[in-house]
């Protein structure tokens, strides 16, 4: 080829080091660079409608092929609770000493499922949506946050089922029900934060998604979903470190706070000390820490 790489007629030939200078002169920026943290927050805020629309769309798409459609949003958590009741309430008899065991168990299962599915969805938020990440430009944190929001919407459906169960067991509506709002908010921030940490790890090493179900199941068993941590601690003598560990466990904190808010027989003395401080602390730590950790790798998602 004799004509190889002749310069276009309208642009003067540029030496290589000239190009950088040219870019600087016209204020061009490097493509695909990571924005500063305040700029990143601003971009994310600008995409808030996308985050909510994406979460709602995912939720509706979930059961759109089923004949019963959106009824499954409520039926699935109810069936889940029935299975847990059959195994832990009837077969294993873990209910000893717990008043209103079924509301106690169902609240635990629903609140735990919120954290569990948020983290699971977060782990796959980037690695499972590479098509989206590679095709469009948006702050990637929108994905894990959107998945956590989808799980929050799912939980609200479950709460509707829970209210029906609570009425069936004659638990009165009390002023403490208002507390569910701050508890859910703090738990959402915590979940979104952990999701972002897992999303970054899962984006680099997708194998983590295979490991997470086991980690999460272990976490569930120590979080007092089907037994009362408070009465277990009173009846057995465990080392102090284990006690603190069990009581500070964020999942247990949110579950117990929710039970305290909803069930009148679950009294304040069953809650660990400083429980609100734990709830707030975990939310802040996971929320801010997770966000910054996720942002640090922003320019590397969906690449290589």
């Amino acid at each position, binding site marked *: 080829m004799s004509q190889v790489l002749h310069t276009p007629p*309208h642009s003067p030939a540029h030496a290589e080091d000239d190009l*950088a200078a040219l*870019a600087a002169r016209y204020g061009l*920026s490097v*493509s695909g660079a990571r924005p500063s943290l305040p700029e990143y927050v601003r971009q994310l805020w600008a995409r808030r*409608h996308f985050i909510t629309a994406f979460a709602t*769309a995912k939720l509706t798409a979930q059961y759109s092929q089923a004949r019963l459609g959106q009824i499954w949003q409520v039926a699935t958590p109810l069936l889940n609770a029935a299975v847990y009741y059959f195994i832990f309430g009837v077969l294993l008899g873990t209910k000893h000493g717990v008043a209103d065991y079924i509301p106690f168990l169902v609240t635990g299962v629903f609140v735990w499922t919120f954290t569990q599915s948020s983290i699971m969805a977060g782990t796959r938020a980037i690695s499972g949506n590479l098509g*989206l990440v590679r095709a469009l430009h948006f702050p990637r944190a929108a994905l894990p946050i959107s998945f956590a929001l989808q799980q929050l919407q799912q939980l609200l459906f479950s709460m509707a089922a829970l209210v029906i169960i609570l009425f069936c067991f004659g638990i009165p509506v009390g002023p403490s029900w208002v507390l569910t709002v701050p508890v859910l908010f703090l738990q959402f921030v915590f979940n979104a934060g952990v999701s972002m940490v897992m999303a970054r790890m899962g984006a680099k090493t997708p194998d983590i998604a295979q490991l997470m179900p086991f980690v999460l199941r272990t976490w569930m068993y120590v979080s007092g979903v089907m037994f009362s941590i408070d009465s277990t601690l009173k009846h057995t003598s465990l080392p102090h470190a284990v006690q603190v560990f069990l009581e500070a466990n964020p999942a247990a904190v949110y579950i117990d706070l929710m039970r305290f808010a909803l069930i009148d027989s679950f009294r304040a003395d069953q809650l660990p000390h400083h429980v609100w401080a734990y709830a707030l602390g975990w939310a802040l730590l996971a929320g801010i820490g997770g966000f910054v950790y996720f942002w640090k790798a922003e320019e590397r998602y969906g690449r*290589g």
Partner: protein
Amino acid sequence: MAERSTENIPTVIADNVDIVYRVYGTGAGRGSATAALNRILRPKQAEKTAGVRRVHAVKKVSFVAYKGEAIGLIGTNGSGKSTLLKAIAGLLPVESGKIYTDGQPSLLGVNAALMNDLTGERNVHLGGLAMGMSREQIKERYQEIVDFSGINDKGDFISLPMRTYSSGMAARLRFSIAAAKDHDVLLIDEALATGDRAFQKRSEQRIRELRKQAGTVFLVSHNNKSIRDTCERVLWLERGVLRMDGPTEDVLKEYEAFTSGKS
């Protein structure tokens, strides 16, 4: 070309760009468990021994694109056209060199954001939001998007889930959503090849409109006719190397000689 003679404002500058893909689980390591473990434990040294293959997709490419230009990217399959486009959009990292852009170039395409189980109507909203349009903008352009796609020509299909659409209908809706936004730098990857003849005509018309609003348009296509119709400058990539850069007719003549000589 006359309007540029007064001022040449660059919008995209590629400075000696190299792009390298790393593919895991090939060659000597054969993806065996020990090789995988080795790779996790010693990411740096293990790259060669654990069967990581490096694919050098784009090699030392430099060019300057100016405001108001429509640039075609041509080359045989696997020559690095789409890779270069993704790097300009900031979606792929460069190994060395730099790409400077004016604003955020956007790749024309929303496929990945759409969901087959949702109605066409909700997908228009979702796709628009994913591209960064505001709710008001979407509301304003909604009718325009639906009319342009021609989805409702044969009955009220927009309120049905997208999985019930024929592949041509779905492709038309996707293009209509993607083309609804105004872009500073627009990157189009073979988007013109979708839909029937009437829709292709409409798409070419829309791309000309977008070009007027956009600073610069890049078009990847294997259809030399659509390159001739829309672009006045062409970059020819072959095996990752920028082989030629010049006015459409000159480059296409060489390219056509090259491809016909090969077959």
